[in-house]
């Protein structure tokens, strides 16, 4: 049975984490078995789900009143633990796994590797989708500066695991010399040595020498992720707000999705200010009210009207620039923080139902 994958993307501060949690709660209440994965180290998902602490292991979130079978697990990505586990699983022997895990370059790289969070989020997503335990997996994406980094991560890892690259990198460890088979190799050798020093290059080469044995497995996983991201069961939801900067980043991300042939699931437009339902005339206000209270009422009404008009223009621009039949969900500004399950469930009324994603 296939698992639906929902990936919430968007620029920082638009409310991805809260919306991911609200989607997960909504679908669990509707009877789905849902996992929500955040990579956000700031523990904000735990705050919203009111479960105190999140960890790399799945943690059940107590959902009351769910349709039969509905359940929710939440977890926070630990990139290093996921990387270690992957190496242990793919290494041909425990001794080789230990050699990789103990390498100094690996230790620095797995914790601080540029893009390792992005890549490991994808690896974890794949594991959850394959597990057969869940109907839906929701991924709250990392706050990346370059959306591209995130989408490219699997391909970049596959590039690094390319046999040609690995073979080239392990040459010094195997033949006692840093030689490449390609044109210009001498220059490359000279430049890298001059920049990094011979010692560092040796250690990195040692790492790759051990790593070459898991290279095939890593490349397979990367290809599986690549396929998962383009599967019809996957939906990229672009979370944005009516703010001009968030909107232009959303459109930028959308172009990347199209370019990379990844399935766009629709816009979730958060913190949308709805216009007042009634016109307010000063004559409506009880005469007994103080001047300050009267002014406050008129001012609040005026501000909300102008903000709502500005937001509507912004949303119209966004939708006009997006694909014609794009799904769109407007999420009214809650006017307060959401930090419990009831708040998340309430937010869910404005979000797509499990069947709304095509």
């Amino acid at each position: 049975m296939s698992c639906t994958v929902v990936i919430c993307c968007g620029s920082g501060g638009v409310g991805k984490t809260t919306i991911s949690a609200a989607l997960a709660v909504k679908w669990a209440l509707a009877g789905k078995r849902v996992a929500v994965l955040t990579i956000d180290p700031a523990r904000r998902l735990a705050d919203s789900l009111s479960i105190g602490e999140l960890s790399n292991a799945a943690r059940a979130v107590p959902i009351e009143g769910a349709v039969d079978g509905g359940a929710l697990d939440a977890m926070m990505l630990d990139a290093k633990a996921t990387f270690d586990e992957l190496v242990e699983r793919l290494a041909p022997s425990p001794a080789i796994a230990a050699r990789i895990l103990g390498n100094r370059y690996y230790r620095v790289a797995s914790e601080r590797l540029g893009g390792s969070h992005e890549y490991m989020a994808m690896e974890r997503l794949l594991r959850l989708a394959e597990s057969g335990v869940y109907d839906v997996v929701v991924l709250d994406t990392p706050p990346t500066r370059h959306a591209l980094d995130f989408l490219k991560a699997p391909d970049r890892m596959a590039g690094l695991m390319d046999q040609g690259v690995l073979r080239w990198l392990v040459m010094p460890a195997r033949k006692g010399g840093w030689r490449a088979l390609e044109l210009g190799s001498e220059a490359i050798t000279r430049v890298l040595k001059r920049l990094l020093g011979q010692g560092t290059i040796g250690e990195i080469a040692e790492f790759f020498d051990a790593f070459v044995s898991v290279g095939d497995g890593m490349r397979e996983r990367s290809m599986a992720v690549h396929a998962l991201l383009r599967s019809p069961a996957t939906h990229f939801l672009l979370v944005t707000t009516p703010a001009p900067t968030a909107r232009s980043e959303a459109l930028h991300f959308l172009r990347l999705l199209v370019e990379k042939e990844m399935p766009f699931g629709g816009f979730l437009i958060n913190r949308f200010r709805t216009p007042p339902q009634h016109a307010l005339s000063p004559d409506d206000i009880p005469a007994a009210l103080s001047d300050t209270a009267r002014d406050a009422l008129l001012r609040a009404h005026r501000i909300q009207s102008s903000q709502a008009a500005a937001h509507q223009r912004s949303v119209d621009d966004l939708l006009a620039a997006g694909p014609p039949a794009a799904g769109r969900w407007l999420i009214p500004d809650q006017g307060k923080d959401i930090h419990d399950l009831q708040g998340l469930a309430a937010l869910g009324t404005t979000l797509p139902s499990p069947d709304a994603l095509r």
Partner: protein
Amino acid sequence: MSLLDKRILMVTGKGGVGKTTVSVAIALAAAARGKRVIIAETSGAEVVPPLFDSLRGGYEPHPVSAGVSTLSITPEAALEDYVVQQIRFRSLFKLVFRNRIVKPFTDAVPGLHDAVQLGKVFDLERASRPGGQPLWDLIVVDAPATGHGLTMLGSAQTMMDLTRAGPMFEGVRQVQEVMADPVRSALVLVSLPESMPTSETLDLYRRLDDQQRAQVGAVVLNSLYPRPLPQEDWDAARPLLADAPPAVAEAAAMVDRWQGRVQQQADARAKLAGIPCPLLELRHRFDGSPDAAALLEMGEALLAQEEA
């Protein structure tokens, strides 16, 4: 010691809190006081020039306003700059770093991209005019958001751990020396007066090491709403609105939410006051995105609070 006495200000905070706004505001106010200032973007988005109706972007510093220049430091441009400085030949850089084999490898070296970006900031700090005075009195870095910001701050140390010796080690050691110097470099943490940004700011502060904590020069609390009316006036007015027509009831609910937000702001302020450095505040602007004049006014407001 004031923010303007520093050479480098690293402005960071959760996504969407207004890091760029605060960076530009401080830069404009510093320039108004006679400083030569440069704003360094690190995201590649080049959002600063359009604030000054300029279409120019890129890695070369270019003026956008009296006393203020800007540049966009992308990892790619900074890496090329660094390597060419080391090996002298641009053609050799292209041969090596655009190579099919080397490219995925350099992409994977932990901290390299962040470290070369910091390296460029370091170069700006050291650049001098013919008379020997600094070319830039103040470098305001619009740094990446919290998690990535921390990685960038630690990247010189990461590269030192990784290389341990050699030319690159020596280079990043010098960068680290300037970045970790409390006299020359300070951190500015930007937050919003809402509970999640506030807890993220506190979390960021907790994750800094002692050295970095001592470098936090200011916390900026952005986008504060004014109180619509004193709470006791509102409490007195509320019962009179019990049977009000729907239009008034609706407006009353808006005022309730507004008062609630102001209360939440007080909570945020109290929590952030726990960070031992000046807490500077900026009011919410109901009139949309600030223009250059408004940004200068915001910067002046920040500096005035810091001096008070």
